[in-house]
C-alpha cells in the first residue's frame, strides 16, 4: 500500500493530528528543560546578591529590541497560519519569510550584543552569572536557529501547495520560543 501523505497527517490521537500532538509533547519537554535552567538561575540569583552588579552590564536596549522583534515575528507566524488555513500559498510563504526575517534580526542583534560583551571581558568563564547568561541565551538561540531552518523548509513545501498543516506546527514551536524569551528578558536584563 503506497502512502501519499505522512502518517502524522493521516491519523489522529486524542482527537488531533499525531504531528500536532507530538509537537505539544515537544513543547511540554521544553518546559522542563528551560524551566529547570531558569529556576536554577533564579535560586542562585536569590542567594547571590552580588549577581545584580554583574547583571547591570547586560544591554537592556538589545534585550528590549529583541523582545520586540520576537513578538512581531510571533504575529507574522500566526498570520501565516491563518493564510495556510485559507490555502493561500503566496501569502503563507510571505508571512513565513517575514517571520524568518524576524528570527535573523534577533540573531544579528544577539551577535552584536555578545561581541560587545565578550570584547569587554564578560565571557562565559568570567563568573557563574555570565555562565548562566550565555547558557540560557545560547540554548534559546539554538532553538531560534533550528526553528528558522524548519520554517524555511516548510515555506517551500507550502509554495508547492503541500503540507499547509505544518505551518501551524512550526507556529506553535515559534510561539514557545517567544515565551521562553519573554521570561529570559526580565531575568537577564531587567532585574539589576
Amino acid at each position, binding site marked *: 500500500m503506497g502512502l501519499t501523505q505522512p502518517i502524522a497527517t493521516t491519523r489522529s490521537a486524542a482527537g488531533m493530528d499525531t504531528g500536532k500532538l507530538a509537537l505539544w509533547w515537544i513543547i511540554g519537554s521544553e*518546559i522542563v528543560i528551560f524551566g529547570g535552567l531558569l*529556576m536554577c538561575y533564579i535560586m542562585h540569583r536569590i542567594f547571590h546578591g552580588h549577581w545584580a552588579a554583574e547583571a547591570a552590564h547586560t544591554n537592556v536596549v538589545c534585550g528590549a529590541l529583541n523582545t520586540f522583534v520576537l513578538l512581531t515575528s510571533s504575529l507574522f507566524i500566526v498570520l501565516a497560519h491563518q493564510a495556510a488555513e485559507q490555502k493561500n500559498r503566496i501569502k503563507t510563504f510571505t508571512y513565513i519569510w517575514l517571520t524568518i526575517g524576524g528570527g535573523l534580526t534577533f540573531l544579528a542583534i544577539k551577535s552584536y550584543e555578545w561581541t560587545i560583551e565578550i570584547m569587554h571581558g564578560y565571557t562565559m568563564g568570567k563568573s557563574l552569572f555570565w555562565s548562566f547568561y550565555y547558557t540560557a541565551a545560547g540554548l534559546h538561540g539554538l532553538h531560534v536557529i533550528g526553528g528558522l531552518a524548519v520554517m524555511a523548509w516548510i515555506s517551500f513545501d507550502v509554495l508547492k501547495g503541500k503540507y499547509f498543516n505544518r505551518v501551524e506546527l512550526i507556529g506553535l514551536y515559534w510561539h514557545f520560543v517567544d*515565551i521562553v524569551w519573554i521570561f529570559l528578558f526580565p531575568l537577564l536584563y531587567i532585574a539589576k
Partner: protein
Amino acid sequence: MSSESHSPIYYVKIWALLLVLLIISIIGPEFGIRWVTMVTAFGIAFVKAYIVGAYFMHLKSEKRIITYMLLGMVALLLVFVAGTMVDIMSSKGSGWERLRLDKTIPADDHHDDEPH
C-alpha cells in the same frame, strides 16, 4: 485550533497589547522600587506568556488535555526544583564540606561563582 474566525486585525491588536506590556515592563523597574520591579518585570512576563499561549497558540480553544499536559510538565518541574532547592539554598550543615577553602570568603557566604 481554528484561526480562521479571527481577522488579522484581531491578532494585530493582541500584538499591540503585548508591546504596551513590554514598555511597562521596561519602565517599571526604572523607579527602583522592589515591589514595582517584581510586578512590572516578572508579573507582566507571566501575563505576556499567557496572552501568547492563549491567543497566538490558541490554547483557549485547544483541547483541554493539552493544557493539562502542559500544566503537568510545570508541576513536574516544580517537583525537581523542590528537590534541588534544599541543596542550593544551603551552604553549611552536617552534610556539607567546603572543598575550596578561601580565607577571604566568609564561611556563610558561598561566593562560588568565580572561575574554577
